[in-house]
């Protein structure tokens, strides 16, 4: 029979909100700074901020190296998405459906590049390709190089596997049985029942792989041949000192990221709705 003498004064909730907001600021302020300085009207990035120019963006489009790097990155990311979806979706099925000796090892191995610091995967692949005498610029200039494409795909397949596997686990097996019961063979069942159900997971994973590949440095760094990718190009600029051009390209990347996130968020909303 405890009836409190009125609502106890809540000190905890307001302080939680205060801490939470501070953390939000901590997360977002630096990003805001980068964006603001992209419009900074001075060669030197310094306080105070002088807003009001677009010429860093214009410079960017005349920067041949940057443009080439951007194209290379896009090619790399697209190839990576295609390969890692092509391998990752069957991989998820293997984890979900098949039983074979070494399955546990397979599962752990797939996840390894996700868990290990990227540099380890990078040097391992470098060692491997060099051992096999595969030239890092093989495939150039059509693509940035097969080793880096394979390296990205090997590292990022795990994302497709985990996302699709999680979805498959939630997919009731009776759905497939119902389909087969209704005269659909395995292929039709895959096409009409399984695929629509894992579609959002596959697309979500593809988006994730795409952005991760665009941003990848550790593996790229060791495997890149003659053509720099965008992050490596930016990295090169940064090593020479900070220039507002970097802010401009960062801002563009940031804006593109937001577009991708919105797409991803919409996919995930659909995904949540299926739970």
């Amino acid at each position, binding site marked *: 029979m*405890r009836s409190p003498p009125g609502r106890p004064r809540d000190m905890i*909730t307001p302080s*939680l*909100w205060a*801490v*939470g907001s501070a*953390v*939000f600021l901590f*997360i977002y302020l*630096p*990003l805001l*700074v*980068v964006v603001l300085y992209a419009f900074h009207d001075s060669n030197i*990035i*310094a*306080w*105070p*901020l002088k807003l009001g120019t677009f010429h860093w963006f214009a410079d960017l489009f005349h920067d041949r190296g940057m443009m080439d790097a951007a194209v290379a990155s896009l090619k790399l990311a697209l190839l990576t998405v295609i390969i890692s979806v092509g391998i990752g979706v*069957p991989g998820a*099925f293997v984890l979900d459906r098949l039983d*074979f000796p070494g399955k546990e090892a397979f599962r752990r*191995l*797939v*996840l390894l590049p*996700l*868990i*290990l*610091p990227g*540099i*380890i995967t990078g*040097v*391992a*692949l470098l*060692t*491997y390709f060099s051992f096999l005498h595969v030239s890092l610029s093989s495939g150039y200039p059509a693509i940035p190089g097969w080793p880096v494409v*394979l390296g990205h*795909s*090997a590292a*990022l*397949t795990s*994302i497709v596997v*985990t*996302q699709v596997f999680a979805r498959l686990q939630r997919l009731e097996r009776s759905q497939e049985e119902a389909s087969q019961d209704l005269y659909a063979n395995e292929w039709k069942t895959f096409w009409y029942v399984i695929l629509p159900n894992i579609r959002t997971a596959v697309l979500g994973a593809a988006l*994730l792989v795409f952005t991760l590949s665009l*941003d990848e*440095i*550790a593996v790229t*760094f060791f495997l890149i041949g003659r053509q720099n990718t965008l*992050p490596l190009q*930016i*990295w090169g600029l*940064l*090593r020479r000192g900070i220039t507002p051009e970097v*802010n401009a390209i*960062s801002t563009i990347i940031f804006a593109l*990221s937001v577009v991708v*996130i919105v797409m991803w*968020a919409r996919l995930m*909303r659909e995904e*949540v709705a299926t739970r």
Partner: protein
Amino acid sequence: MRAHPRLRSFLSGLVPVGWVTVLLLFPYILLLVQSFWKLENGTITHQVTLDNYRRLFGTALYPDTILFSAGIALRVTFFSLLLAYPLAYLLAFKVKRHRNLMYMAVIIPLWVSYLVRAYAWKIILGQEGILNGLLMSSGLIHEPLTVLLYSKWALIIALTHIYTPFTLMPIFAVLESIPVSLKEASGDLYASRWQTFRRVILPLSIPGVVAGCTFAFVLSMGDFLAPQLLGGNDSALMVSNLVWSLFGVAYNWPLGAAVSVVMLCLTLVLLWLANSVEKRMNYTGADGKKAATDGRGMMARGAGV
């Protein structure tokens, strides 16, 4: 009549399993093998030796660097947890409307280029950066402080900034999976709110905390770009930077491989420990476990680091 589907599933498994074997297993094994090879006059000979490990453990530089990196990573982990836990708690229990939106807002930075996030701190902490500018214009200092950038604290701040959302994800997922009725039951049984947190919420959230901290630790210890960008002379020497220079400028791949193998072993031991803790303390059932793995999928951002 059942051999046929079995054969088919064998074939369908062949591609992914083969892929993982050829492009992950073999490279990792080769890295291990190479760490036992000998470097003679700048060429690698396939001669088995323990020299690399002898040198690794015999020269103060290597163990010191590993310890130094672990120290940095530990601090990053601590601060990330300190920032992430209250926010995760707030999102899980206090935010009623727009919770998903706010959660998305927290993990959006994971999608934003790693380089951009690291570089932002250079603008803020640099000699002519925002912080110095603000401090000078407020009259607190007269000369720009040079210690802000290129110090290990700059590195720690930037890494904390990068890994806080990582740490938050699994914690939030586990907190969210705790049924509200448990909180109510605890209150019903005379526990104060602090006691409820201490005795019910905190113990149940341990798997998420462990998962988040493990990743923050492993990934920040393995980071090699932020140290070069922000860390200054001493802290440019994180263990990954050693690997980087051994494989790059120094061209001593066998020794680099040995350092990598040590890093790999440390990571695996840590993950194994974390995994057993998670397993033992996972009371919220499949939900919590799945949440942690989900977080891991999203943690993918770290794969690029």
